[in-house]
């Protein structure tokens, strides 16, 4: 019984597995973009994104 339920848990349906993979890719890219525009330190990035950082209330300067 236990073995059976753990086997079911281990083998996620392939559609769910695919959704999780896509979610992780989207999450990584999404955080990366927000980090670049809202938090990254290089001066050129800061200067270009300056008004957006203030407007969207990311900590700035």
């Amino acid at each position, binding site marked *: 019984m236990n073995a059976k339920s753990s086997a079911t848990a281990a083998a996620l349906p392939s559609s*769910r597995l*695919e*959704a*999780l*993979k*896509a*979610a*992780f*890719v*989207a*999450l990584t*890219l*999404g*955080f*990366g*973009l*927000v980090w*670049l*525009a*809202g*938090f990254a330190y290089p*001066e*050129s990035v800061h*200067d*270009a*994104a*300056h*008004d*957006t*950082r*203030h*407007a*969207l*209330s*990311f*900590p*700035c*300067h």
Partner: protein
Amino acid sequence: MIARVLTTGLIAGLVAGLAVAALQHFTTTPLILAAEVYEAAQHAHDGADAGAAFSGLSRTAATSAATIAVSIGYALILLAAMLLSGDAIAPRRAALWGACAFAATGLATSLGLAPQLPGMAETELAARQIWWLATALSTGAGLFALLRLDSTAAKIVAVALIVAPHFFAPQPATPESTAPAELAARFAAASLAVQAISWALAGALAGLVWRLQSRQQELS
């Protein structure tokens, strides 16, 4: 699946970002420019050099590009959250996810770090960024537990996650703003409104584009 999520995030973020950039152009940016006049006057008085790296059209373009990047990021984060939680991706539900994300990244963080104009007093940047991120993540997790989990223990943990960051809020700097208080107040309100619209629009459009793509797949 990955291609479809990325396409949806790109299209939704691009459209939402353009709309928000237009909104910023008429709401927050004029206030930032006005604040910089006061800041520059103070710098000139102190004998320091001050000047924006971008000006005119290139500044508008740079700001719009940054806003589009953030909007694509928001759309992708919302899509990922809905996929992880097993939700159906639809415009109304996605907009609600966006509203909760605004509560986490906009409302909760502004309690400790109010939206700031250039020239306002500020403390060390890294500490503020860490608190901002921690508060947004903690509030987001708390809201999810509060709204989606049924056990009493989960609700207690949820409230703790939402409240706890505010005990560690950064000490505000001694007020020494060069910008007039009226300008700062208008900016804080405008910033919150722009943030709310960014999240809700990124979510709603992501839901809409996702649905349109589903229909197209059914037809082909």
